[in-house]
């Protein structure tokens, strides 16, 4: 997917990536790649400012954790209650939008 297109939806993707469990930045990117089967092409560095923005907006919270494999400090992000609610709302909005787009473009509605 084109980077610019992706940018507009990055927040939603990030919220979805940490829905099940708290993850650090690298794991979030891996998660996105895995779920999208490598189709999401974005500069990995842009994920971190986006995570910080979501944290500032109260949708994520983060804490330091020690990586078990190498002992390095890692910032782990997880959803707040507000973040969970925002994720639900945005998922619904996205589905409605996608449905409308598909209907117009003649795809699956």
């Amino acid at each position: 997917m084109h980077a610019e297109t992706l940018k507009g939806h990055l927040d939603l993707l990030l919220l979805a990536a940490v829905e099940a469990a708290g993850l650090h930045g690298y794991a979030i990117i891996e998660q996105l790649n895995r779920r999208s089967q490598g189709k999401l092409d974005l500069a990995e560095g842009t994920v971190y400012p986006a995570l910080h923005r979501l944290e500032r907006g109260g949708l994520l919270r983060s804490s330091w954790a020690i990586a078990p494999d190498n002992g390095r400090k890692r910032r782990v992000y997880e959803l707040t209650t507000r973040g969970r609610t925002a994720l639900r709302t945005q998922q619904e909005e996205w589905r409605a939008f996608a449905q409308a787009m598909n209907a117009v473009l003649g795809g699956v509605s």
Partner: protein
Amino acid sequence: MSISTYLNELRAALRLGPLIRRRIMNEVEDHLREAAARERRAGATPEDAEERAVERFGAATEIAAAFLEVDGARATVGGFTVLWLSVSAASVVALLTSLYAPTAGSLATAPAPTGLVVETSPGGQFAQMRVEAQADDPEEGDDEAAPLVRATASVTVGRSSVAIRHARPQRHPAIAEPTTLVALSRLEPPRPDPLTPEREDPSDPMLASRAPADSDSDQDAPLLPPPAPPLVARQPSAPPPPSLAAPPQPVGRSSHAEVKYPPEARWAEAEGDVYLILHVDADGRVQNVTVAKRLGHGLDQVAQDLGYRLRFKPARDARGRSVEAFVNWKIHFTRGQKNVGLPGLPFRDQDMWSPIFPRRREI
């Protein structure tokens, strides 16, 4: 590029407070080391592995700019003094000097060291100024990395008020904090600006050529910019006493009609504050709205429209007379908001109307 070279570049571009910078550097390094380790496991040489990890992460200047935009407001950075000096020493003097002899068409671009642009309304009664300055030394030719400092000034020509609003854009730290309103409630007779740099000579021909706004309006006054004043710190020695007794007070809520949150902004999930400068006349009506800090996605226009709908109890001078004034106003937009209701608040009481010259801040 190796990881350590990349981290050095990033560190240099991150003009943030030490705590947040350390956190960012920590996260980025952790990411790059992990990515490189993965490349090595896939068979890359150590050099190639680092190269690929860095490449996938994105250009240091771009990533730094994104961090500055998000984390800037957290940090306390001492660019303010530089900013203030840039604006006060160069632009204010340039602006005031030229505005003493205003004609509608003659407020041409007044080049100042910071790149000063003066615009006038067709009637010549209201002028706007935008200044773009750099607080620190940017990398050569690298606009993205340069922390731009923007200043907006609202000026009433031929009347008594001048206001300067300078702000840092989003990516620059502490946008919401250094809101400064400079007011000269009486410009007649002209007096030296207390922030005028020391070397400015009161007998300067530029200052002598000042004329009242309403005289000789078609005279093509020479509006050469004043010599660039040195950007040296100087404490304002004796601020003029304020001549305003009361700031404008917002009244009523009936004018805060709801407006639609622009669909574009909803899709972009735009959230944040739009900062406005309201020019409130002596009847309490908003005569002009200048957007001092933008949010984009159509929200600036919404904020501006809302600004015009506000009503105020006019400002009063020491004798209790209604006078015009400038008010800083902030309109907050929250994601998911279908409509925009009560549209905002003054920044802070002391910022709303500040008829004194701001004190210099310590770095």
